[in-house]
């Protein structure tokens, strides 16, 4: 573990522990994400994926462990701070206001303003269209309400938002979970575009068929422990799915 290695890692999490009351949700997870890779974080429901990612995005604080970002040790205490570092999360509970326009959503909380805090709508509209086009999402107008978009397009808007704010790391928390097959495929295309833009992404899901074609490396969590960390060429969907459902120890099963 020389300094050279930590340099090529964008994120490094060491020995992360998290308890919720008596539940030991994360049991000393080590976790790395390399620069401009798309990493698949896979595991069954309750495996600890979301908890791990919420530690990274500032929603939860780890009870133990260290986090390094771009080689520097950090402590993330709020989602605002995570965003300041360049960590953007696309949540599974789509973080969009459905009765607001696309451009108002993209700039929600970070509105470009003229003097006295008045919205610069021209910049908002132009920049949102640019952001959408950068992930090959072609929508008619930045004034369209989110409620009028399909589920896939909505995730696209959320991803475009992360992209626009020059995220160094985009965390996609179950981005395909509530979508139809066609919509999910759209979202996978957006994620491929992220890669083209050279952005690092963590794709969290329990659907191997969604993540496998897109990601380059897979980390598998099982009951709060990391059970695998493999490159795509060294594994297959079958091998991965076996690891996801495997009981950690035979003696532990009831």
């Amino acid at each position, binding site marked *: 573990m020389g300094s050279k290695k930590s340099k090529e890692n964008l994120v490094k999490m060491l020995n992360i522990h998290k308890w919720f009351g008596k539940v030991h949700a994360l049991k000393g997870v080590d976790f790395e994400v390399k620069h401009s890779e798309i990493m698949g974080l896979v595991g069954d429901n309750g495996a600890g994926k979301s908890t791990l990612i919420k530690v990274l995005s500032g929603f939860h604080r780890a009870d133990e462990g260290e986090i390094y970002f771009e080689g520097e040790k950090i402590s993330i205490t709020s*989602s605002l701070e995570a965003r300041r570092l360049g960590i953007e999360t696309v949540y599974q509970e789509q*973080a969009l*206001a459905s009765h*607001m326009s696309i451009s*108002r959503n993209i700039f929600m909380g970070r509105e470009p303003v003229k003097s006295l*805090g008045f*919205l610069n709508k021209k910049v908002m509209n132009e920049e949102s269209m640019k952001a959408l086009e950068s992930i090959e999402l072609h929508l008619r107008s930045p004034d369209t309400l989110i409620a009028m978009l399909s589920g896939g397009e909505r995730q696209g808007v959320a991803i475009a938002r992360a992209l626009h704010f020059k995220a160094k790391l985009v965390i996609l928390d179950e981005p395909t979970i509530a979508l139809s097959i066609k919509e999910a495929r759209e979202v996978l295309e957006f994620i491929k575009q992220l890669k083209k833009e050279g952005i690092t992404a963590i794709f969290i899901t329990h659907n191997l068929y969604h993540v496998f074609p897109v990601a380059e490396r897979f980390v598998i969590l099982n009951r709060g422990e990391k059970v695998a960390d493999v490159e795509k060429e060294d594994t297959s969907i079958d091998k991965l799915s076996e690891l996801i459902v495997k009981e950690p120890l035979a003696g532990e099963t009831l």
Partner: protein
Amino acid sequence: MPLINLKMSYIHKFFSYRAANTLIVFVGLILFFAFFTPRHVFVNPRNITSLSKLMPDLGIVALGVGMLMICGEFDLSVSSVLPLCAFIFISLLKVNINPSFALCITLGSGALLGLLNGIITVKGRIPSFITTLGTMMFWRGILYVGSHMWPIGLRAYLPPGSVFEHIFVGKIGGIPVQVIWFIAFAVILGIILHFHKFGNWVYATGDNKLAARAMGINTDRTKTICFIIVGVLCAFVGILQILRMETFGCTQGIGFELKAIAASVVGGTFLMGGIGSMMGIFLGAITIQILENGLILMRVPVFGISAFIGLAIVLFVILNTYIERRRTR
């Protein structure tokens, strides 16, 4: 052919405009009452003048309440904050404080009362419906005890014809100044709501609080500021009413809490927050008061009027919900 398309798109645009339904009903009601009130008394200049003196009272309060509703919260305490602030104002005049200074203190008191509603709601993590139900009853009790429920005449403390009075209840070119205040507040709040980043926060907070928070919007502060705005507007109207009626009465503003919500709803504001417009609220506040006035002029028994207003509100919400569903399809 392109001309027809152009026209169609204008018509389409108009109907997709959120305040459009309210505007149609507003114009429809005016025409209806203009034709069908006995001797067209509805459009009689005297009726219009008295309407324009009365309407801003509820209207100004409704502007704030509507904005707060877009933000996803309610304020039932307006009907107590308003007379309490009026009482503060007249009490200050009683002890010989300069009216302008008294005005500032009263508006400040309104702001504090709004701030209190906001802090209790946000920090106590309880629905504002409950918070403001509590503060409504609390402040009314305090007011009744403090004022002994006696009316207090204004003239003993403020001689008629002062500049101060003219600024609030005088006339400019035959138009009651109250109307100008009402429009001014609507324009200012409309600009804030639709063109300022704070307005973006208000909509985001009311539409999807979790998303707003995840995007770094301080939703608690946004809500609290909206509560403060309501408080200040209540204080303003409290003073306005004292100056107009030349007396303080502890039943000022009674019933405003629900009427303001009704006005907002008629103006296309959704009870769940996130949807509404300042133009809609403005028109909604006028519409329900025109309805009331028109029905009285048509000799509908005064005590039966609330039946019509109730009916109108329900029909309106059904209409708005239907249109909103079609818009987003």
